[in-house]
Protein backbone atom coordinates (compact mmCIF):
# COMPACT_ATOMS: atom_id res chain seq x y z
CA UNK A 1 0.00 0.00 0.00
CA UNK A 2 1.42 3.41 -0.94
CA UNK A 3 2.59 5.53 1.98
CA UNK A 4 3.71 9.05 2.65
CA UNK A 5 7.35 9.07 3.70
CA UNK A 6 9.29 11.73 5.59
CA UNK A 7 12.96 12.41 6.21
CA UNK A 8 14.69 12.76 8.53
CA UNK A 9 12.84 11.01 11.31
CA UNK A 10 14.65 13.17 13.88
CA UNK A 11 16.46 16.49 13.55
CA UNK A 12 18.31 18.45 16.18
CA UNK A 13 19.31 22.00 15.36
CA UNK A 14 20.54 25.15 17.01
CA UNK A 15 18.27 28.14 17.42
CA UNK A 16 18.56 30.46 14.44
CA UNK A 17 19.54 27.73 12.00
CA UNK A 18 17.58 26.82 8.92
CA UNK A 19 16.02 23.40 8.61
CA UNK A 20 14.38 21.64 5.70
CA UNK A 21 11.97 18.82 6.33
CA UNK A 22 11.28 16.51 3.44
CA UNK A 23 8.24 14.54 2.43
CA UNK A 24 7.41 12.24 -0.45
CA UNK A 25 3.62 12.21 -0.88
CA UNK A 26 1.70 9.32 -2.38
CA UNK A 27 2.45 9.41 -6.08
CA UNK A 28 -0.98 10.12 -7.58
CA UNK A 29 -1.98 12.62 -4.92
CA UNK A 30 -2.38 16.26 -5.83
CA UNK A 31 -2.85 17.99 -2.47
CA UNK A 32 -0.14 18.23 0.13
CA UNK A 33 -0.17 19.40 3.72
CA UNK A 34 2.02 20.11 6.70
CA UNK A 35 0.86 19.79 10.30
CA UNK A 36 2.75 20.00 13.55
CA UNK A 37 2.24 18.72 17.06
CA UNK A 38 4.04 20.38 19.92
CA UNK A 39 4.57 17.92 22.76
CA UNK A 40 1.40 17.58 24.80
CA UNK A 41 -0.67 19.72 22.44
CA UNK A 42 -3.06 19.17 19.56
CA UNK A 43 -2.06 18.41 16.00
CA UNK A 44 -2.22 21.80 14.24
CA UNK A 45 -2.60 22.61 10.56
CA UNK A 46 0.18 24.65 9.01
CA UNK A 47 -0.35 24.81 5.28
CA UNK A 48 -1.88 23.12 2.25
CA UNK A 49 -0.42 23.15 -1.24
CA UNK A 50 -1.92 22.45 -4.63
CA UNK A 51 -0.81 23.07 -8.17
CA UNK A 52 2.50 24.52 -7.01
CA UNK A 53 1.05 27.13 -4.74
CA UNK A 54 -0.22 27.52 -1.22
CA UNK A 55 -3.98 27.05 -1.10
CA UNK A 56 -4.49 27.66 2.60
CA UNK A 57 -2.33 28.48 5.59
CA UNK A 58 -2.81 28.98 9.29
CA UNK A 59 -1.67 31.81 11.52
CA UNK A 60 1.25 29.65 12.62
CA UNK A 61 2.63 29.63 9.07
CA UNK A 62 4.38 32.98 9.19
CA UNK A 63 7.21 34.39 7.11
CA UNK A 64 9.80 32.08 8.59
CA UNK A 65 8.06 29.09 7.01
CA UNK A 66 7.98 28.19 3.35
CA UNK A 67 6.98 25.17 1.31
CA UNK A 68 8.17 23.95 -2.03
CA UNK A 69 7.73 21.10 -4.44
CA UNK A 70 11.19 21.16 -5.97
CA UNK A 71 10.63 18.17 -8.24
CA UNK A 72 7.93 15.69 -9.13
CA UNK A 73 8.13 13.74 -5.91
CA UNK A 74 9.37 15.79 -2.96
CA UNK A 75 7.46 18.31 -0.88
CA UNK A 76 9.51 20.33 1.58
CA UNK A 77 8.93 22.54 4.58
CA UNK A 78 11.64 25.08 5.31
CA UNK A 79 11.99 26.93 8.58
CA UNK A 80 14.39 29.82 7.96
CA UNK A 81 15.50 30.74 11.45
CA UNK A 82 14.38 28.20 13.99
CA UNK A 83 13.15 29.18 17.43
CA UNK A 84 12.89 27.10 20.55
CA UNK A 85 9.12 26.99 20.17
CA UNK A 86 9.44 25.35 16.76
CA UNK A 87 10.35 22.12 18.53
CA UNK A 88 7.58 19.72 17.57
CA UNK A 89 6.65 16.71 15.50
CA UNK A 90 6.00 17.77 11.93
CA UNK A 91 3.64 15.65 9.86
CA UNK A 92 3.28 15.71 6.11
CA UNK A 93 0.05 14.52 4.53
CA UNK A 94 -1.37 14.15 1.05
CA UNK A 95 -4.76 13.60 -0.51
CA UNK A 96 -5.83 12.56 -3.95
CA UNK A 97 -8.62 15.00 -4.50
CA UNK A 98 -9.91 18.25 -3.11
CA UNK A 99 -9.20 19.16 0.47
CA UNK A 100 -12.16 17.49 2.09
CA UNK A 101 -11.00 14.09 0.97
CA UNK A 102 -9.07 11.78 3.22
CA UNK A 103 -5.58 12.93 4.07
CA UNK A 104 -2.88 10.29 4.46
CA UNK A 105 -0.15 11.06 6.94
CA UNK A 106 3.54 10.37 7.03
CA UNK A 107 5.39 9.14 10.11
CA UNK A 108 6.56 12.59 11.09
CA UNK A 109 9.85 14.36 11.73
CA UNK A 110 10.67 15.16 15.31
CA UNK A 111 12.43 18.53 15.37
CA UNK A 112 14.30 19.66 18.45
CA UNK A 113 15.61 23.21 18.56
CA UNK A 114 18.28 23.86 21.17
Amino acid at each position, binding site marked *: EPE*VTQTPSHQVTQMGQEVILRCVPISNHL*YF*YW*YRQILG*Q*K*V*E*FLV*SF*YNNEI*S*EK*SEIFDDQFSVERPDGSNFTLKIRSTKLEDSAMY*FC*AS*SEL*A*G*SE*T*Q*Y*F*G*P*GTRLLVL
Partner: protein
Amino acid sequence: AQSVSQHNHHVILSEAASLELGCNYSYGGTVNLFWYVQYPGQHLQLLLKYFSGDPLVKGIKGFEAEFIKSKFSFNLRKPSVQWSDTAEYFCAVTPRNAGNMLTFGGGTRLMVKP
Protein backbone atom coordinates in the same frame (compact mmCIF):
# COMPACT_ATOMS: atom_id res chain seq x y z
CA ALA B 1 -13.35 28.60 12.72
CA GLN B 2 -14.03 25.06 13.72
CA SER B 3 -12.92 23.35 16.92
CA VAL B 4 -12.95 19.78 18.17
CA SER B 5 -13.16 18.49 21.73
CA GLN B 6 -12.32 15.04 22.95
CA HIS B 7 -13.42 14.71 26.51
CA ASN B 8 -11.44 11.68 27.57
CA HIS B 9 -7.69 12.24 27.62
CA HIS B 10 -6.79 8.83 29.00
CA VAL B 11 -8.86 5.67 29.03
CA ILE B 12 -7.83 2.35 30.55
CA LEU B 13 -9.86 -0.75 29.77
CA SER B 14 -9.52 -4.47 30.15
CA GLU B 15 -9.68 -6.68 27.10
CA ALA B 16 -13.23 -7.44 25.93
CA ALA B 17 -14.60 -4.27 27.50
CA SER B 18 -16.67 -1.95 25.36
CA LEU B 19 -15.25 1.36 24.24
CA GLU B 20 -16.82 4.70 23.54
CA LEU B 21 -14.69 7.79 22.94
CA GLY B 22 -16.42 11.12 22.80
CA CYS B 23 -15.90 13.75 20.11
CA ASN B 24 -17.76 17.03 19.76
CA TYR B 25 -17.13 19.70 17.22
CA SER B 26 -18.13 23.28 16.76
CA TYR B 27 -18.68 24.73 13.31
CA GLY B 28 -21.49 26.65 11.69
CA GLY B 29 -21.63 24.67 8.47
CA THR B 30 -21.38 21.15 7.15
CA VAL B 31 -18.33 19.12 8.00
CA ASN B 32 -16.57 15.92 7.10
CA LEU B 33 -15.57 13.90 10.15
CA PHE B 34 -12.68 11.55 10.73
CA TRP B 35 -11.18 9.33 13.35
CA TYR B 36 -7.46 8.68 13.09
CA VAL B 37 -5.45 6.26 15.19
CA GLN B 38 -1.77 6.35 16.07
CA TYR B 39 -0.35 3.06 17.33
CA PRO B 40 2.85 3.28 19.39
CA GLY B 41 5.75 4.22 17.14
CA GLN B 42 3.60 4.48 14.04
CA HIS B 43 2.05 7.26 12.02
CA LEU B 44 -1.51 8.54 11.99
CA GLN B 45 -3.80 6.13 10.17
CA LEU B 46 -7.38 6.63 9.10
CA LEU B 47 -9.79 4.56 11.16
CA LEU B 48 -13.04 5.75 9.60
CA LYS B 49 -14.72 8.77 8.09
CA TYR B 50 -18.11 10.30 7.57
CA PHE B 51 -18.95 12.51 4.63
CA SER B 52 -22.68 11.96 4.09
CA GLY B 53 -25.37 9.28 4.11
CA ASP B 54 -25.86 6.74 6.89
CA PRO B 55 -24.70 8.46 10.07
CA LEU B 56 -23.43 5.16 11.46
CA VAL B 57 -20.14 4.42 9.79
CA LYS B 58 -18.01 1.35 10.13
CA GLY B 59 -14.27 1.42 9.94
CA ILE B 60 -11.38 -0.95 10.18
CA LYS B 61 -10.74 -3.36 13.04
CA GLY B 62 -14.34 -3.42 14.24
CA PHE B 63 -14.60 0.28 15.02
CA GLU B 64 -17.69 2.32 14.26
CA ALA B 65 -18.77 5.89 14.83
CA GLU B 66 -22.11 7.64 14.84
CA PHE B 67 -22.65 11.16 13.62
CA ILE B 68 -25.39 12.90 15.59
CA LYS B 69 -25.90 16.24 13.91
CA SER B 70 -28.12 17.68 16.63
CA LYS B 71 -25.40 17.05 19.20
CA PHE B 72 -22.45 17.97 16.97
CA SER B 73 -20.97 14.64 18.00
CA PHE B 74 -19.08 11.84 16.31
CA ASN B 75 -18.35 9.28 19.01
CA LEU B 76 -16.17 6.28 18.34
CA ARG B 77 -17.22 2.85 19.56
CA LYS B 78 -16.02 -0.70 19.65
CA PRO B 79 -17.99 -3.45 21.38
CA SER B 80 -15.00 -5.46 22.56
CA VAL B 81 -11.48 -4.03 22.68
CA GLN B 82 -8.26 -5.98 22.31
CA TRP B 83 -4.80 -5.35 23.68
CA SER B 84 -3.73 -4.39 20.16
CA ASP B 85 -6.14 -1.43 20.25
CA THR B 86 -3.78 0.34 22.63
CA ALA B 87 -3.10 3.60 20.81
CA GLU B 88 -3.94 7.28 20.68
CA TYR B 89 -7.17 8.18 18.92
CA PHE B 90 -7.79 11.53 17.25
CA CYS B 91 -11.07 12.96 16.08
CA ALA B 92 -10.80 15.52 13.27
CA VAL B 93 -13.08 17.62 11.11
CA THR B 94 -12.79 19.60 7.94
CA PRO B 95 -15.38 21.97 6.52
CA ARG B 96 -17.07 20.49 3.50
CA ASN B 97 -16.28 22.40 0.34
CA ALA B 98 -14.63 25.17 2.28
CA GLY B 99 -10.92 24.54 2.56
CA ASN B 100 -8.45 21.84 3.31
CA MET B 101 -7.65 22.30 6.93
CA LEU B 102 -8.13 19.33 9.24
CA THR B 103 -8.86 20.44 12.78
CA PHE B 104 -7.94 17.85 15.37
CA GLY B 105 -9.13 17.15 18.86
CA GLY B 106 -6.61 16.73 21.62
CA GLY B 107 -6.52 12.95 21.31
CA THR B 108 -7.43 10.14 23.68
CA ARG B 109 -4.80 7.70 24.87
CA LEU B 110 -6.33 4.25 25.19
CA MET B 111 -4.57 1.55 27.14
CA VAL B 112 -6.03 -1.94 26.99
CA LYS B 113 -4.85 -4.27 29.71
CA PRO B 114 -4.43 -7.89 28.66
